[in-house]
C-alpha cells in the first residue's frame, strides 16, 4: 500500500502563541481508515485543516513536513493546494445543517465540484449529479437536485455533502465529527453508507471525532490526541484492550458504550405520589391551508407519564418525535390540545401565566446548547442569581453568598463568578446553566438534551454532576435525549417516543435487556462502540 498522507514532526502554531499541533507524525495509506480521537481543543481540527491546506491566516506551520500524494504542502502555493482540494482530498464537514450554501440549489452545489474535477461544460453533468445522489442513498434524486438545502432533512444534507466530497473522485476523505449533529440512528446509517462507498472505491478515510466509540467501530487504526500530540496509537482492539496512556483510559471510561452497566439504581417505592403527571396528553398544530393536504399536524398523541420525586424519567426519540413538545407542555409553555397536566395534586393544564408563575420556582429547565442558553452579556454571577432576583428572594450579601454556594455545588471555582460565558468551555457553560436552574431549589428539573452538544468525556462529567445533585438534593429529572447511551446509566425509567406516540415504556433494565420493539433495538444498536464490545464478548 502506498502512503497517501505523510505527516512528519508537524507543528502548527497560532499567531497569539498557542501551539495547536506539536511535533505530530502520522501516515495514512491508500484505502486505510484512520480515526483521530480527542477532545475539543486537542488540535485535531487544526491538523485536518492543515492536511486540506485550509489553515486560517492566523495559523502557521512552524516545523516539520506535510506530504499529501507526494506534494509537499508546507511550501506549496495556494494554487497547488487548491489543485489537491476536491480532487485528492474531499471533506465531509461537521454540521450538515450549516455546511451547504442556503441560496444555491443542491444540484448546483454538486455540479460545481464535478465541473472543477472534469473541466468546464463536460457533457453529462446532470446525469452525474443524479447518479451521485443515488449513490449516497437519496431516493428521488432528480427532485432533490432541484431543491434548496432548507427543503432537505439534516440526514439528507449530510448525504449531499458526501456526494460533493465524492464528486471530485478524491483519494482521501476527511470526515470531521461526522456524528455530532444528527440523530443516532441517522448517523449510523449515513456513516455505514459512507464507509461502504469509500471501501468500494479504495478511498482512504480520516475520521475526526471526540467519541472513542465511533472511532473503535469504524477505523483500522486509532490515534489518540491530547494537547496537540499523539499520546497513543494502534488498532481499536489494542487501544481498547490494553490502553497505555492515562488519557486513553479516561476516554474509555467516559465513552458510554464501554462503561460497565451498573447496578440498577435504587428505586423509590411507588406508593409515593408523582410530582408531575401527564394524562392522555395530545397536541395538534394547525398547518397553513393548502388544497389536498391535511390541515393539522399531530405532534403528540395520548401521552401518559409520571415522574416521581428523586427519580429520573428519560424521554428518548429522534427529531420530530414530539419529545420537545412534551417538554414544553410539561413546562406550561404550551397548552395541550387534549389531556391534563398535573403538578403534585394540582391540575395545572389551564392555569394562566400569572397563576403558573409560583410553580416555576419548583420546576426548572436546562437547555440543549449551553452557549446559547446563557446571555452573553451577563456574567456568571448575573446568570446564576437571576431567578433569585426575579422572585425577589434574596438581596445584597445574602445573594452573593447564595451565588458562591451554587457555583460550589456545580464544582466550578468561585472566581468564575466574574467571567462571561465566552470565556468558558461548553461543559463549564452547562454547569453554570445547571447552577442557575438550581438557584430556586426546584423539585423537578427538565433536562432538554443536556449533553448532546458536548464532548463525550465532558458528557460523562456533567451526567455525574447531575446524579450527585439528585442523590444529595432529591431532585426529580425529566431527561430528553435522542441518544440511548446517555440514558443507560442515568435514568430510572425510559419512555421511547416515535412520531408523537409512545412505543415503549419501562424501566431502564427492561428496555436494555428486553427491548419490546424493533425501533428500540435499532436505537440500542446505534450506540457507537457496541460493535467492538459485542465482538469482544
Amino acid at each position, binding site marked *: 500500500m502506498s502512503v497517501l498522507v505523510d505527516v512528519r514532526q508537524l507543528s502548527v502554531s497560532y499567531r497569539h502563541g498557542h501551539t495547536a499541533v506539536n511535533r505530530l507524525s502520522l501516515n495514512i495509506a491508500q484505502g486505510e481508515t484512520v480515526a483521530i480521537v480527542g477532545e475539543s481543543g486537542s488540535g485535531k481540527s487544526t491538523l485536518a485543516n492543515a492536511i486540506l491546506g485550509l489553515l486560517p491566516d492566523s495559523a502557521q506551520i512552524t516545523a516539520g513536513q506535510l506530504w499529501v500524494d507526494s506534494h509537499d504542502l508546507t511550501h506549496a502555493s495556494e494554487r497547488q493546494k487548491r489543485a489537491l482540494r476536491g480532487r485528492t482530498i474531499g471533506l465531509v464537514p461537521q454540521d450538515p445543517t450549516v455546511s451547504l*450554501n442556503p441560496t444555491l440549489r443542491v444540484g448546483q452545489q454538486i455540479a460545481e465540484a464535478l465541473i472543477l474535477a472534469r473541466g468546464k461544460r463536460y457533457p453529462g453533468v446532470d446525469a452525474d449529479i443524479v447518479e451521485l445522489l443515488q449513490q449516497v442513498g437519496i431516493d428521488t434524486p432528480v427532485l432533490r437536485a432541484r431543491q434548496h438545502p432548507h427543503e432537505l432533512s439534516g440526514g439528507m444534507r449530510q448525504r449531499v455533502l458526501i456526494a460533493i466530497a465524492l464528486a471530485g473522485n478524491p483519494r482521501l476523505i476527511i470526515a470531521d465529527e461526522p456524528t455530532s449533529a444528527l440523530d443516532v440512528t441517522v448517523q449510523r446509517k449515513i456513516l455505514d453508507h459512507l464507509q461502504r462507498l469509500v471501501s468500494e472505491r479504495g478511498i482512504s478515510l480520516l475520521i475526526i471525532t471526540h467519541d472513542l466509540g465511533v472511532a473503535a467501530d469504524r477505523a483500522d487504526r486509532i490515534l489518540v490526541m491530547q494537547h496537540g500530540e499523539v499520546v497513543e496509537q494502534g488498532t481499536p482492539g489494542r487501544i481498547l484492550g490494553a490502553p497505555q496512556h492515562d488519557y486513553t483510559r479516561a476516554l474509555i471510561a467516559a465513552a458510554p458504550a464501554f462503561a460497565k452497566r451498573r447496578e440498577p439504581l435504587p428505586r423509590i417505592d411507588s406508593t409515593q405520589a408523582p410530582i408531575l403527571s401527564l394524562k392522555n396528553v395530545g397536541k395538534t398544530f394547525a398547518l397553513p391551508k393548502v388544497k389536498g393536504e391535511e390541515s393539522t399536524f399531530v405532534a403528540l398523541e395520548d401521552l401518559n407519564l409520571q415522574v416521581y420525586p428523586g427519580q429520573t424519567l428519560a424521554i428518548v426519540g429522534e427529531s420530530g418525535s414530539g419529545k420537545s413538545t412534551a417538554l414544553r407542555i410539561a413546562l406550561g409553555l404550551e397548552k395541550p390540545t387534549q389531556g391534563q397536566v398535573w403538578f403534585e395534586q394540582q391540575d395545572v393544564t389551564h392555569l394562566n401565566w400569572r397563576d403558573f408563575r409560583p410553580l416555576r420556582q419548583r420546576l426548572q429547565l436546562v437547555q440543549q446548547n449551553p452557549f446559547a442558553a446563557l446571555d452573553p452579556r451577563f456574567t456568571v454571577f448575573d446568570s446564576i442569581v437571576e431567578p433569585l432576583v426575579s422572585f425577589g428572594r434574596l438581596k445584597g450579601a445574602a445573594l452573593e453568598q447564595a451565588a458562591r454556594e451554587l457555583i460550589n455545588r456545580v464544582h466550578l471555582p468561585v472566581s468564575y463568578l466574574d467571567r462571561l460565558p465566552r470565556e468558558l468551555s461548553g461543559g463549564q457553560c452547562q454547569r453554570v446553566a445547571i447552577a442557575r436552574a438550581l438557584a430556586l431549589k426546584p423539585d423537578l428539573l427538565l433536562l432538554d438534551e443536556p449533553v448532546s452538544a458536548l464532548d463525550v468525556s465532558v458528557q460523562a462529567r456533567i451526567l455525574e454532576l447531575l446524579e450527585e445533585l439528585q442523590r444529595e438534593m432529591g431532585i426529580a429529572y425529566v431527561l430528553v435525549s435522542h441518544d440511548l447511551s446517555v440514558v443507560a446509566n442515568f435514568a430510572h425509567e425510559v419512555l421511547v417516543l416515535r412520531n408523537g406516540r409512545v412505543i415503549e415504556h419501562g424501566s431502564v433494565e427492561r428496555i436494555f435487556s428486553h427491548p419490546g420493539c424493533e425501533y428500540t433495538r435499532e436505537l440500542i444498536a446505534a450506540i457507537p462502540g457496541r460493535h467492538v464490545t459485542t465482538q469482544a464478548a
Partner: protein
Amino acid sequence: MSRYLIGRIGQALLVLWGAYSITYFILYLLPGDTLSIMLSASGMEADALSVEDLAKARAYYGLDKGLFEQYVDLLLGALRGDFGQSLSLNRPVAELLAERLPQTLSLAGLAIVLSLLGGIGLAYLTAYIRWQPLKTALARLPSLGFSVPVFWMGLLLIQVFAFGLGWFPATGSRGLESLVLPAVTLAIPSAAVYAQVLQRSFQGVWKESYITTAYAKGLSRGQVQARHGFKNAALPILTLIGLQVGNTVSGAVLVETIFARSGIGRLAQEAVLRQDIPVVLAIVSVSAAAFVLVNLLVDLLYPWFDPRISHIPKVS
C-alpha cells in the same frame, strides 16, 4: 403567490391612504386660519377683503364645507389624478408634478444606481483584499462617507469638479452632465450605508461552514466569494435599499437646492415656504407612493435572493 400579492398591494394602498390623510389633517388643522394662509399664498391680504369677498373666497376654495366633506372631495380628486390648483403658481398641481417629476426621477434613479455600485463595489473589494492595512483602510471609508454632511459634500464637489477642473456644470438642470454632481452627492450617504452593512455581512459569512465546504471543493477565493459569499452577504442590503429610497427623496430637497435644479425636491421646499398646501399634499402623496412601490418590489425580490423566504404557504 397571487394571494400574497393582492394582500401586499392592499397593504400598500392602505399605507398611501394613511400618508395622505395624516398629511391632510396636519396641514388643515394647523393653528391659523386656513383661508388667510391660502389667500396670502396667492398674494392677497385677508384683512383687505370685505366680508362678502371672504365668503366668496371661502366658497371658491371649498372651505365652506365641513372638514370631512373637504377631505373626501380632495381624496376623490386625488384618486382621479386631480390634486387641485397651486395657490402660489396658479396652475394645476398635476401639471406642476408632471413637469418637475422627470427631473427628480432621473436624479434619484442615477443616485440609487451609483450608490449601489459604489457601496456594493467597495464592500466586495474590502472582502476580497487580504492585505490587512488596505483592508482596514477600506473598512473605515464608509463611516467617513456618511459623517460628511450632504450640503458640504455638494459644495466640495462643485468647488473641485465645476470651478476647479471645469468638468461638469455647477448648477442647472440641463443635460446629462448637470446630473452627475448632484447624483454623486446624493449617492454618497446611501453608498456608505450599503458598504458598511455589506462589509459586516461579509465578515460574518466568511466564518460560515458552507464557505469551508466551498473551499474544500477546490474553488478559488474569487469563486467562493462570488458564488457562495456574495448572495448570502447581500441579503440585509435588500431591506436597506427599500428604506434608503425614502432618504433619497428627502435628500433630493437638499441637493436640488444646492445645485439649483428644478425638481420635486425644490418644488417641495418652495411650497412649504409659501404654505402652498395642495402642492405639499401632492408631493407627500407622490413620495409615499414611490416609497411604498419600492418596498413592495423589495419584498417580491426577496424569495429570489433567499429561497428560504417564501410567499407561498409553507407545507411541513
